[in-house]
């Protein structure tokens, strides 16, 4: 035992440990382990694909009116029938997916922008900033959401973009809360203290060290919020506060269907089923992501 100095290169450093796998791969594997997650993800992927390729796959122009073909039940020509202006429901459904998905993405983006940075800032800095931001978000959260949305749209004027802005504002506190709570956990980790001791500025510490470690739960909130935004957009459009004619979304289609309920009850089904399935798929996806993340974390914990 004369080996007093430190060897430059350990000959026996085992290349990696058998129980550990790269964190990212573990999460993906954990997520894909659940069948419901794969089904939900697959459905959503198809939906996005359909929305993107709408001009190619839609059998008719969604806005061409045909007064002679008004309110026809499903047939070989019009697989899902026609609406009160004689427009093909299937085509409108496909084009509406574009609007609905885009709108919900917009809303979530707004919520992310309004909720995440203040959440990280509040959790990281604490003090008066935290108090003020938390108060604001709490106020936002305690207002009844539909009423708040209608108010915002009333002020900004109707239209899908304004409606989504409203929904984004309403959903922001959710992002804020998760970001703030997770940041407060992460802030007490030694590597944050280490980065400050190293001379990293606040911005770098927040963006480079805190944000990446806050993202996993945020990803979950994004997934669930996308589903909620689809439903919220449908509600606003149903009330006529969202998408404006001639464009359509699932919500406005539902509105059309409801006013023709007596004559053409079959019109309710296509948009209704799509809204239901999409919200469900986002929820299942979020659930799968969450379970996958916790599983891979606990599996890593055991290896130590």
């Amino acid at each position, binding site marked *: *035992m*004369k*080996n*007093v*100095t*430190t*060897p430059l290169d*350990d*000959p*026996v*450093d*085992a290349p990696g*440990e*058998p*129980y550990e*796998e790269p964190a990212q791969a573990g999460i993906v594997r954990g997520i894909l382990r659940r069948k419901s997650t794969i089904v939900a993800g697959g459905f959503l992927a198809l939906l996005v694909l359909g929305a993107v390729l709408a001009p190619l796959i839609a059998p008719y122009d969604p806005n061409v009116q045909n007064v002679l073909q008004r309110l026809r039940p499903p047939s070989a020509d019009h697989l899902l029938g026609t609406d009160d202006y004689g427009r093909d429901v299937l085509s409108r459904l496909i084009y509406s997916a574009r609007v609905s998905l885009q709108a919900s993405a917009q809303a979530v983006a707004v919520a992310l922008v309004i909720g995440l940075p203040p959440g990280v800032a509040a959790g990281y800095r604490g003090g008066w900033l935290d108090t003020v931001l938390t108060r604001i978000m709490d106020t936002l959260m305690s207002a009844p959401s539909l009423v708040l949305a209608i108010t915002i749209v009333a002020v900004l004027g109707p239209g899908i973009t304004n409606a989504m802005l409203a929904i984004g504002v309403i959903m922001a506190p959710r992002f804020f809360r998760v970001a703030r709570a997770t940041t407060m956990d992460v802030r007490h980790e030694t590597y944050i203290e280490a980065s400050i001791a190293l001379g990293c500025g606040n911005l770098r510490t927040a963006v480079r060290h805190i944000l990446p470690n806050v993202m996993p739960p945020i990803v979950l909130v994004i997934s669930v919020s996308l589903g909620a935004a689809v439903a919220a957009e449908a509600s606003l459009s149903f009330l006529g506060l969202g998408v404006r004619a001639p464009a359509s979304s699932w919500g406005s289609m539902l509105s059309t269907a409801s006013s023709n309920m007596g004559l053409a009850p079959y019109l309710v089904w296509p948009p209704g089923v799509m809204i239901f399935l999409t919200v469900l798929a986002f929820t299942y996806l979020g659930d799968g992501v969450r379970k996958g993340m916790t599983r891979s974390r606990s599996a890593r914990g*055991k290896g130590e």
Partner: protein
Amino acid sequence: MTERQQETEAPPLLETRDLTVEFPNPAGGWTPVVQQVSFTVGQGESVALVGESGSGKTVTSLAVMGLTGVMGGRVAGGSVHFDGRELTALPEREWRGLRGPGMGMIFQQPIRSLNPAFTVGDQIAESVRRHLGFNRKAARARAIEMLDLVQIPRAAERVDDYPHAFSGGMCQRVMIAMVMACNPRLLIADEPTTALDVTVQERILQLLRELQEQTGVSLLFVSHDLAVVAELCQKVIVMYAGEVAEQGTAADIFLRPRHPYTSGLLAAIPKPGLRSDRRLESIPGSIPAPGSWPAGCRFHDRCPHREPGRCDSRHPDLTPAGPANEARCLRTSEIELQGVTVA
């Protein structure tokens, strides 16, 4: 020496033979974490299971407690004999009667081993009532008696306190009281003083020594800290990479080790009064994780005495070495090894 040999003629309280424990790996198979571990703990004896992380010492102690399954592993071979019974195939129902009155375990983090929602008295009384069938009043009396035994001042008052009212050292005493309340024959202590301050550690070690004298309980002391082991144990089992590297009496292990790993470990401990060139002797390299154990002797690539072509190809057996030890080293009789030296 001769006294000790006579003692061991009585059947040992605990005997493991060729114990092998495996855990699932990500590839879907099973990786051995402990392999062919054999040792005995005699009546009233105090035995140390020493090793670094990944050596399998904790897994071995969990296997003795029958907790391998709880941790997700399985006993893949060998036997654990306790007080005349074979434990490896024991059904869970019978285990419940054995943990408590048969053997008890204390852990590194005493505060986490206690339920914060109940008073310490309730927690001690609960285990006495369940295992020994005491009534409520007798159980409470027993709880006070036990707190007194582990030298908690004003035991009759503290019995109604919640765990958070106790310091780390006091929590460990409460844990010991809880385990000892059922009169176990074997006490397994997994790094019980590692989280404690040095002066508190000293007192807990003293307490364990006194408890052994008073109750005759056998002790299986799991630790990475050889200095603590020297203060407490008569017999030492040194584990490395899932197997026993060397075992023998404490005196022999510390003063004339017969395995280069033991000798290296002893050299790596800072010793009072010795500060030669202000450096510690170190063992190069790092501990191989289960599943990546090298062929041949598992210590060969860190060993200063290795013989190329021999140590890296043949896996040594545990063989008698020196006057009293057993060592798993092919070259044990050829090499000169340093024991511990103190100024």
